[in-house]
C-alpha cells in the first residue's frame, strides 16, 4: 500500500538556512507546519451562526476587527467582517469542517486551506524591528498588544500577522510565496543575527 509522504511548506527554503544559527540571534524563525487551516465565512450578526461556531470550536468567535482568540482546540482570527481563519490540529481539520457543516445553517462557508498556507513564528528581541522593515503597519506594543492580528502587506507579499502572549509573532503566509518570504526575512534579519529553530 502507499506510504503517503507530506512536505512542510518551508522544507526546502529552511534547508538552505540550516547553518545560520548564531547563539545571540535577534530574530528566530520557526515553522509551525501541518496545522489545520480552515477559512470560515458567515454572518456575525446571526446569533445562530455565532453560537454554532463557538459551540463547535469551543472557542470565542472574534467579531471585533483585528483580534484573534485562542482556545484549547482551536484559535480563530478575524480576517474580515464575515471571514475568519480557524486553526486546528492537522488531523482534526476534516472533522471540524464536517462538524461545522453539521451545526451551521443558513448562509456560510467552510473551506480547508491547510495545504495553501503555513505559519512562521518570529521570536527574539529584534523580531519587532524585522516587522518594521517588512510591513507598513504599526506594530508598536501599545497598539499591537497580544491578542491582536492584522492582514497586511509583508515585503511584496501578504501575511496575517498575530501577536502572541510570549511576545513573539505568528505570520500566516501563502505557500507559493513562502520561499520569497523566508529569503526576505533571512536577509533583513542578518544584521540582528538570524536563527532557524527546528
Amino acid at each position, binding site marked *: *500500500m*502507499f*506510504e*503517503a*509522504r*507530506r*512536505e*512542510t*511548506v518551508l522544507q*526546502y527554503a529552511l534547508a538552505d538556512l540550516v547553518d545560520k544559527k548564531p547563539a545571540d540571534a535577534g530574530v528566530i524563525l520557526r515553522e509551525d507546519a*501541518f496545522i489545520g487551516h480552515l*477559512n470560515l*465565512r458567515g454572518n456575525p450578526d446571526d446569533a445562530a451562526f455565532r453560537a454554532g461556531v463557538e459551540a463547535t470550536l469551543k472557542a470565542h468567535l472574534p467579531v471585533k476587527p483585528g483580534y484573534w482568540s485562542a482556545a484549547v482546540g482551536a484559535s480563530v482570527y478575524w480576517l474580515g467582517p*464575515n471571514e475568519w481563519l480557524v486553526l486546528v490540529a492537522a488531523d482534526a481539520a476534516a472533522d471540524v469542517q464536517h462538524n461545522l457543516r453539521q451545526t451551521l445553517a443558513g*448562509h*456560510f*462557508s467552510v*473551506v*480547508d*486551506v*491547510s*495545504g*495553501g*498556507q503555513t505559519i512562521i513564528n518570529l521570536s527574539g528581541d529584534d523580531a519587532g*524591528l524585522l516587522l*518594521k*522593515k517588512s*510591513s*507598513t*503597519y*504599526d506594530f*508598536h506594543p501599545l497598539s499591537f498588544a497580544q491578542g491582536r492580528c492584522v492582514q497586511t502587506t509583508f*515585503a*511584496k*507579499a501578504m501575511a496575517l500577522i498575530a501577536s502572541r502572549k510570549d511576545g513573539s509573532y505568528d505570520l500566516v503566509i*501563502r*505557500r*507559493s*510565496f*513562502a*520561499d*520569497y*518570504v523566508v*529569503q*526576505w526575512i533571512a*536577509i*533583513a534579519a*542578518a*544584521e540582528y543575527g538570524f536563527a532557524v529553530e527546528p
Partner: protein
Amino acid sequence: MSGSAVVQARRLPAGGRINRDQPIRFSFNGIAYQGFEGDTLASALLANNVNVVARSFKYARPRGIVGHGAEEPNAIVQLGHGAQTVPNLRATQIELYAGLQARSVGAGLSVNFDLMALVGACGRLMPPGFYYKTFMRPQKLWMTYERFIRKAAGLGSAAAEPDPDSYDKLNQHCDVLVVGAGPAGLAAALTAARSGARVIIADEQNQFGGSLLAARPTIGHQTVALWLTKTLAELHACSNVEMLARSTVFGYYDHNFLAILERRSDHLRISSPSVARQRLHRVRAKQVVLATGAIERPLVFANNDVPGVMLASSVSTYVNRYGVAPGTKLIVFTCNDNAYQAAIDWHQAGQHVVAIVDTRCNPSGVVVATAKELNIDVIGGHGVIEALGKKCLQGAVIAPLNADATAIVGATRQLDCDLIACSGGWSPVIHLSSHTGAKPQWSDAKVGFLPGESIQQERSAGAAKGTYSLLDCFSEGAYAGARAAQLAGFGNGTVSTTTPPIEELTEQPQQALFLLPHVKPVSRAPKQFVDLQLDVTAAAIELAAREGYESVEHAKRYTALGFGTDQGKLGNINGIAILANTLGQSIAATGTTIFRPAYTPTTFGAIAGRDVGDLFDPVRYTAMHRWHTEHGAEWENVGQWQRPRYYCQPFEVMHDAVKRECLAVRNKVGMLDASTLGKIDIQGRDAAEFLNRIYSNGFLKLAPGKCRYGVMLKEDGMIFDDGVTACLAENHYLMFTTTGGAAAVLAWLELWQQTEWPELDVFFTSVTDHWATATVTGPNARKVLALVCDDIDLDKDAFKFMDWRDGTVAGVQARVFRISFTGELSFEVNVAAHYGRYVWEQLLAAGAEFEITPYGTEAMHVLRAEKGFIIIGQDTDGSMTPADMNMNWVVAKNKSFNFIGQRGLTRAACQRCDRKQLVGLKTLQPETVLPEGAQIVNDPAQAIPMKMQGHVTSSYFSASLGRSIALAVVKGGLQRMGDVVHCPLADGRSVAAEIVGSVFYDPKGERQNV
C-alpha cells in the same frame, strides 16, 4: 594616495569640535593631505589652504568653498572610485575618514589648469538660451553638436559596475516627528518627549545641535553648551524618543508621510551586505515640527565667485566648529547685524579683520558696538561692488552707496583682503513645508519667504519660520513641541521645559539687498553671479525678462536658475528679486517657485531598498518546484510564477525537448504541473445564479460531479478570463482561472457580489495554493491512474469527459477532474499541496512502464494550439469577443439575466463582420514556421503602408502533424477559409499561408472522450 601629508597651514592653534589627537590622512585631486577627526572634507581642505576646488559649469571659472552645509554650490566632488564611487557629493557634507579620496567634478585635468578658461573667454557668446538660437543648421549635424554639449555638461560620473552595497527601509510611526536638531528642534523634541508622545528627531548632521555647534564658546554660550549636553542626555534616556543623526528628511508627502535618508556606513568605511549602507525611514507621523533652520543669503556683486568669497555664517562655522581660518585678511560685507558675529569670531580667533563693510548708512546697535569696541573698522553706507583676483581673492572694490543701496554715490576704493564674508540676510528653509503644497509667503519684515499656511499636520519653529533670536528659537520650539504632542493626544500643550538663561540681543533692521550696483550697467559689468553652480548671472536674468521670459518659471527655465544640485538654496531668492526689480514689480507678486523633493539629493539604491535582484518581485513556486529543478527544468516566468517551460535531457536543445514531450503526450502519456491555475471555492445558495451572471454561458443546470468550461467577459464584451468550473455539491463550486488571471478574477467576483448583488448569498475563497495539480494526459493516462487509484471507477462511461470525482490517489485524498487542455484523455489530479511532490512522484513511478513524460508550458502551448484552444492574453488582447474567437457556442442567447458583457457585445462595432476572427494558418511550405506576431496582408507586393488583415497569435512546429501550424486573427477570417494570405517578414521574405479552421488535430474531439 601620493606624496606625504602637508601641514594644515590654516588650522587655528586651538578650538573647534575636532579631535586634534586623531589626524586623518586623505587625498584630494591626487594630492595627500591631513585633517582631524571631526572635520568635513571642506573644513580639512580649507585647513590645508586649498582655495580652488572646482571649475564652474559654463564659464569654467575657478571656484572655492562658499558655505558649510547643504547649500554649498561649488565644492562638488567625486568620492572614491570603482564600483563604490559616488558622484556629486558636497565637500561640506562629507565627514572626513581615513583614506578618503575625492576629486573635483567637471574639471578637466586639474582645477588649476587654465585651458578650460578659454571656454570662459567665449562667455559672451553664451547668454542664457544661446543653444536655443544656434546649432540648428545643418539639421543632421545636431547629433554631432549634441555630443560635444553633452561632454561639456554633467558633473561627476556614475560607477560603471553594479553597486556592491545594500540598502534597507524601516517603516516608522510616531506621534511627533521633529525635523532638525538645532535649538528649536531640540526644545520641541524635549517638550514632546516629556509629554509621553512617541518622538522621532532627525538631523542631517553627524552631531545634534545645529547652529549651537558653531556657537563661540564664550561665557554667554557656556550655558547654551551645557543646555545642549543635558538636553541630549535626557533625550537619549527617553525610551519614547528615537534620535536619527546623519538623517536627512528629504521629502514631505501626503497624509503626513515623510521620507528620511539615514547615512549609516560611508563615514565608517565599512561595506557589508548585512549592514545597509543607507537606510530609508518611511515615517507616518501624527504631527510634525519643522525646525529646519535658515540658510544665509549671499550678496550679488561683480566677480562674487572668486575663491575667498564666503557666507559670513560659514566663516564663523569654520573658525568655531572646525578651528580653521579660511584666510588671513577678512572683510565682512553685510546689510544686517547678524554678520558682525563673523568679524567678532574672526577677531577672537586672533585673526585680522580688515573691515566690516555695511550697506546701511550708519549701523548702530549692540553687535556694532561690540565690533567697534574690538577696534574693528566699520564702514557704513558702503558696499563691495567687485571682488578682485582669479584663483584667489586679492582685494575688494568698495563704493559709497545711496540709502537703498541701489546706486553708487561716490568714488570707489580698493581694500586688500583674501576673504570676504558676506551676508544678505537669511532664507528660512521652507522646502519641506513647500512639499506639502503650502504656498510660501514673502515677508518684507524678514526679507525672505516664510512657510505658508499649513495644509498637513505640521508647524514650523525657529529660524525655519524666520525667528532668528536664539532665545525665541528655544521658546518657539518648546511651544511647537508641546502643541504637536497635544494634538497627537499627549499633554495639554503647556511647555514643560526651560530655556537657558541667555541675554537677548536686540538687532537693528536689516536692509533688503539682492544685487549690488556697479559702475557699469548690469549687462556690461563683470559677471555678478546669482546661481554659482549653473553660472547664472544677474545679467542673464535681466536678459531673460527682456526677451519675454517674465514668469518666474520661464526665467528659471530659460536661465537654468535653481536647477542645480543645490536647487538654488543660495541663488533663488536673489534671482527672483532681480527678476522682480527688472519687471518693476514686488517680489510677492513675482512669486516663488515650488520646492520639490528631494531636499538634498537622495541615493536611488536607498529609495529602491532591498527590493532589487532576487527580491525585486516575489517568485512563486508550486509544491513540485524542487522536483522540476532537480530534473533539468528550464523556466518560464508566468506572472510571478515560475513554471517549467521544458525539461532538457542530455544533448537536447529546446526544440528536441518540446518535440519529445509533445509526442509522448500524443502517443503515450505525459504529465504537467498545473498547480499554478487559479482556483476559487464558491459556496452559497445563489452560487449558480451568480456564475450564470458572471459567465457568458449558462451555469444554472450544472449537476454535482460535472464540470463546464466558461468564458468571462468585461462589460464591454471583451474576453477577460476563461476556465473550467466544477460543481462540487449543491450550492458549492470550484472555479479554475488562468494562471495570470487568478487575483483579478477573485477581485472581479467580489466586486459584483459586494457592490451590485449583495442580495446573492455566495462566498468566494481562494484555494489556489491549497491544491497541487498534476495533469496526467495521453492515451495511457487511465492506465497510469488505475495503478495508484482504486476507489474511483475510471471506466469511460462511469467517469466521463468533463466529470470529476473524489477519491484517493497514492493513498492521498484527491479530486480528479476529467478535463483536457491537450485534446487527449486527461485526468487532473488535485491533492493538498503538502502531498504535491509525493503524488507527482508516485504518478511518475506508476507511469514508468508507459514511459510517462513530464512536459512543460511550451509543449502545453503546442498541444493546445493543435486543438485550437486559445490562451487568454496570447490569442486575445483585450479587444476580442467570443465571436471573434469563433466561440459563439459559449455565449448564451436567452438567459433571464443580462450577463456581464452581453450588452457590450451588441454594440455596433462588435457586430461588424470585418472584425478580426480566430482562424488557423497552414504555411504553403509545411516546414516553415511563421513567427508569432507576424502581420498578415492579402497582397505582399502592395506599397507601404500596407493594408494589414491581422496577425499571427500562436505558431509552432507540430511534431504530431509533421508540419507547422499557426493560429491567427484575420479580418473576416471565418468567411475566408481556403484563401491564401501573406506574412511579409523583416528579412524581406514573405511567407504564404492558407486560412484553415483553427482545429488542426482530432477535429471531432474523439481522443479526449475515450
